[in-house]
């Protein structure tokens, strides 16, 4: 489980086998219209893991696309407003690559538009906790103007039955952090497609944190379309019994001298906890000098969970700095537990310490002290709950 630990400490909980991509990532069809996508059967690679019966209505059904109230903090250097779906920014970061995303796209009435324009913007926290149980569609556009610096945090609580699109547009030289935190109620269904367009010399830090919900899927597609565009994409998830969390980061190196780092870590405990990570990196024919690395690590804390972890790397130019990937799914490292226990620390506390430490690597990357502290507490609470329930 530790990046440097020996292979013997790692056991494979489960891996998808015999998957052969039938197409390159860039040739995946995209459209804003639901009809342009084939009906979903569950055999498609995009849909083969998710419990389809629970979310089928978000793919094919009618959605309420009216604006849903939210709360946010007034933050200097930022603006938040509802705009029309014909707004010029809509569609500028990407368009849907699957049917649920297209269904959301064509159903929304208004788009929530967030602008970060200050060179030292204050952290903007948008709290979205009023979606309710009706099937809904939503659309956000987060735009950082040229040379703007800022952090936008999307916090999700309560009930949800939601499919949505989130566009992230970085002008030249912009430095933007976008964090999406899913701490939904246990019944929430949430499909979210993120599209990012990163401009020249701009850097996007993108963080997904999924801790709560029934079925939560957040798939970010990050397009590095201009020279020296860069992204750090992080993910952290903790699935309990019965929870399904999926994330499929796609890094699209289009321009020369672009850089990406992808690091997702997950913990799983309890019967039926299931997580899926599919990491696609495409280094296009013009992306000379690309520097890319992606990794996913999963820590399985009990009997019963399943973690799928699939890195895919496509390279269409040989002239690159680096392209690497790593994936591991393991149980507790017995030597770590022995070491901690040999210092008097009880087994239960040692386990918590190891999990906290495992996930801390991602938490420490968020860059918001208040959110980091709160997430640490949430994870601690999950661990204590699980231990109280006798999950080991």
């Amino acid at each position, binding site marked *: 489980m530790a990046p440097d630990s020996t292979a013997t400490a790692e056991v494979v909980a489960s891996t998808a086998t015999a998957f052969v991509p039938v197409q390159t990532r860039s040739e995946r069809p995209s459209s804003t219209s639901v009809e342009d996508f084939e009906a979903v059967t569950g055999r498609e690679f995009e849909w083969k893991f998710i419990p389809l019966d629970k979310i089928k209505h978000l793919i094919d059904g009618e959605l309420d696309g009216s604006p849903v109230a939210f709360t946010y903090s007034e933050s200097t250097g930022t603006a938040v407003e509802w705009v029309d779906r014909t707004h010029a920014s809509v569609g500028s970061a990407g368009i849907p690559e699957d049917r649920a995303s297209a269904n959301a796209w064509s159903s929304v009435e208004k788009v929530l538009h967030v602008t970060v324009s200050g060179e030292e913007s204050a952290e903007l926290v948008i709290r979205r906790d009023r979606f309710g149980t009706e099937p809904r569609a939503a659309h956000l556009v987060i735009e950082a103007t040229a040379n703007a610096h800022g952090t936008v945090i999307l916090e999700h609580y309560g009930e949800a039955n939601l499919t949505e699109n989130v566009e992230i547009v970085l002008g030249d030289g912009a430095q933007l952090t976008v964090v999406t935190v899913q701490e939904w109620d246990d019944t929430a269904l949430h499909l979210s497609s993120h599209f990012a367009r990163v401009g020249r010399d701009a850097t996007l830090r993108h963080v997904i944190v999924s801790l709560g919900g029934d079925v939560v899927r957040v798939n970010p597609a990050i397009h590095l379309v201009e020279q020296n565009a860069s992204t750090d994409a992080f993910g952290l998830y903790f699935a309990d019994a019965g929870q399904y969390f999926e994330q499929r980061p796609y890094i699209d190196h289009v321009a020369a001298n672009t850089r990406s780092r992808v690091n997702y870590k997950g913990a799983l405990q309890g019967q039926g906890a299931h997580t899926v990570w599919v990491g696609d990196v495409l280094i296009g024919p013009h992306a000379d000098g690309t520097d890319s690395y992606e990794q996913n690590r999963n820590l399985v804390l009990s009997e019963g969970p399943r973690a799928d972890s699939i890195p895919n790397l496509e390279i269409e130019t040989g002239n690159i700095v680096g392209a690497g990937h790593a994936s591991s799914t393991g149980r507790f*490292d*017995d030597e770590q537990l022995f070491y901690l226990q*040999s*210092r008097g620390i009880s087994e239960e506390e040692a386990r918590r310490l190891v999990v906290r430490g495992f996930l*801390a*690597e991602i938490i420490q990357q968020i860059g918001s002290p208040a959110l980091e502290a709160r997430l640490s507490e949430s994870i601690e609470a999950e661990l204590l709950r699980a231990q109280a329930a006798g999950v080991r």
Partner: protein
Amino acid sequence: MSVLTIEDLQVSVETEQGTKQILRGVDLTVGEGETHAIMGPNGSGKSTLAYAIAGHPKYHVEGGSVKLDGVEMLDKTVDERARAGLFLAMQYPVEIPGVSVSNFLRTAKTAIDGEAPAIRGWIKDLDASMKALRMDKSFRERNVNEGFSGGEKKRNEILQLELLKPKFAVLDETDSGLDVDALKIVSEGVNRAKENTGLGILLITHYNRILRYVKPDFVHVFVAGRVAEQGGPELAVRLENEGYDRFLAGAIVE
């Protein structure tokens, strides 16, 4: 007066070739403040003794006893043994990603003492011990053993020894991989712990080198899973000159 009593200890380990008997009846008594050097050739069972005392799950006790002040340790968990006063300075301490040295030490100290240490006194003790071991303050914020050099790992082990104040410590080849300066620093730490707390020590080593700095009261030679010979410090000198050949000639080595 505390005493650690090891009687007829027999330990096996599972290997790919099946169960392998390693310790074949070890008897040792370590009194408070005493230093016992355990020497012997590779594969003689020295490290197995260390791990068996600490309770590593890989080692199976087939018979015998390890008692601390008359209380059986072998039926206790690893952490219970540590809280009773046993400590193992490991030859290869593992990395704990994401857990800072400072958080780890404080958690361990709290577990051993049964209550959190008072903050001011704790920071003072920590600073003093780190300074004495020539460890930079930045160590506190580093993750446990992550990216540590061999010498830094060993210092970190001795730092824990000084702060956790056990009754008996097993030092498993603490001298291996240390240059002479680091060896002196680490040895001074061991000697300080001994002076301050009356620590009893089982010092496992392959070489005489560390015994110049940490003076043994007794030397035990391990061969094929049991004590083949014992004596005073002069035995270590003799081993240094003659090697282990004379023990190996008649020994059953599997």
